[in-house]
């Protein structure tokens, strides 16, 4: 039993690695590479966010704030202060982790909609600060970011970036799946089921919630930092409430408490707007309708619903 579980775990990871390795065959030009990189970066954020929303059952409507702080942290340290990009990435991520730790404790005492409001407020505050402090951030116009350099070599070009993001995504999924099967992960699932029951069972729920909040913030900050370096430019649009909503939607769309669901959700919702540009002025209507109908008819999300269909063919989920 244990062996089968372990092998199915590794099979999923191997499948993801295979997709990442083989996808370039289907990417005919740089535009497709660019979309694949965006999917990868969003997927990294979603895998982290899914730990918080899907497994621990705590909502966050402010993760674009962490993404943005990672991005702007890297951008400001490298462009304004001339730091080496890797050091900037590490320091920015560390700062986001400390911030998440500091505000996680009081915020995560809140439940349900109040938690949604508090995280939303945190995200909005970060986005306003970013848009207002134009001396450092360039304000609403954004700022340009130097390229990422590794061991003196500048990372440029879509193909190179594709492999960096692809390897990091596989790593992110591997870490997340290990975390879920660790005592910490089991504690999270226990407190998702019932916080009181988990506490009675000897789980320090506040500590576990804060820890997963920090971990998901770190995922977002790393992806943000990388996306700033990749695009070479960052604007406050990536820090807005709407971007936070997009991230949550990707997680829920793909399927909560499913790491691969988070990846699939990110892939579908990142590519969908690109595909919908064919609809021109109907783009928003179609996007909204797709979102609504998927959630109405597959309330558990894409991947869990499809998995249930495959497991029991001919039987509705």
């Amino acid at each position, binding site marked *: 039993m244990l062996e089968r579980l372990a092998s199915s775990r590794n099979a999923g990871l191997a499948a993801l690695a295979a997709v990442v390795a083989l996808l370039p065959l289907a990417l005919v030009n740089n535009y497709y590479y660019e979309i694949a990189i965006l999917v990868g970066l969003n997927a990294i954020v979603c895998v982290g966010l899914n730990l918080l929303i899907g497994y621990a059952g705590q909502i966050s409507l402010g993760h674009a704030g962490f993404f943005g702080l990672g991005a702007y942290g890297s951008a400001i340290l490298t462009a304004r202060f001339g730091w080496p990009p890797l050091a900037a990435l590490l320091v920015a991520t560390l700062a986001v982790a400390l911030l998440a730790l500091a505000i996680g404790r009081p915020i995560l005492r809140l439940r*349900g909609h109040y938690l949604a409001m508090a995280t939303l407020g945190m995200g909005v505050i970060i986005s306003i600060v970013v848009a207002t402090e134009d001396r450092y951030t360039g304000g609403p116009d954004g700022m340009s970011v130097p390229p990422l350099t590794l061991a003196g070599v500048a990372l440029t070009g879509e193909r190179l970036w594709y492999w960096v993001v692809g390897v990091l995504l596989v790593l992110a999924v591997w870490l997340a799946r290990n975390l879920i099967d660790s005592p910490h992960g089991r504690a999270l699932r226990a407190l998702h089921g019932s916080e009181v029951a988990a506490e009675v069972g000897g789980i320090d729920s506040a500590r576990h919630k804060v820890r997963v909040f920090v971990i998901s913030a770190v995922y977002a900050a790393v992806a943000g930092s990388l996306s700033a370096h990749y695009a070479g430019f960052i604007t406050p649009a990536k820090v807005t409430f709407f971007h936070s909503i997009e991230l949550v939607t990707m997680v829920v769309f793909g399927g909560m408490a499913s790491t691969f669901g988070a990846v699939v959700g990110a892939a579908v919702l990142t590519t969908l707007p690109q595909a919908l540009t064919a609809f021109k002025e109907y783009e928003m209507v179609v996007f909204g309708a797709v979102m609504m109908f998927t959630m*109405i008819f597959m309330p558990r999300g894409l991947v869990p619903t499809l998995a249930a269909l495959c497991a029991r063919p001919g039987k509705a989920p």
Partner: protein
Amino acid sequence: MSAQFLQFLLAGLTIGAIYALVALGFSIIYNASQVINFAQGEFVMVGGMCTVWLGNAGWPLPAAIAAAVLLAALLGLALERFAVEPARGASVVTLIIITIGASILLRGLATLVWDKKIHALKPFSGEAPIQIGGATLLPQSLWVLGVTLVVVLLLSWFFGRTLLGKALLATSHNRLAAQLVGISVRRVLLVAFGLSAALGAVAGILIAPITFTAWDVGVMLGLKGFAAAILGGMGSGPGAVVGGLALGLIEAMGAGYLSSAYKDALAFVIILAVLFFMPSGLLGKRSADRV
């Protein structure tokens, strides 16, 4: 009381009344269905845009307003019937995403049916400012405050004195028990969504002459309404009104005395501070966990 302070006070109360109306919409739907309706802001947009559109088509203002409120109410009913009802039993987050999808859909439809321009609605009764103690007050602000007061009184009558209102309250307390005493919960849900949408539309029409209206005004107003509802305590009627007025005042004072760039940030900082000390908002029910 200095004239400047009075000016900020009047501005804060005006916008606060609008937030209160939107927050009441959030609270009514939340009470009836436990759903946070993130499409609430779009009803505000529909109210304003539809009134402007019908006005331009030559309709008299009262008829345009009535039609806009009716349209929003119908959209609210449709949202309940075709999106929320079929997804009953889904998790809270799933329902939130459905309403967000609905809000994107409604914004998209607004850009198709109307346009992407910013519109101004003519003030209901002239633009000559009224002088009070050195501060100026737009006649439209009086309309906002007056109509909000009337709406709040009507709602308290509705929930306190009518059978349908009491059925709504009963459903919010215990859905199963309400069903057992013969309340049609499905009808109650429809009423809640229709009523909330109409409230949103009223807010959108009242504010349109002051801050203008466009296809995307619903995002920020919806967010502020949600914040006001949470500040007051989700699901509490008086809480929504107090939360809305408080939020409006915080913004106006923050913009006037501190920094206009940081007025929204200040509002959210204060909401966070309130939540840290009162995790159920100002007037919210303190909840205990059932184990």
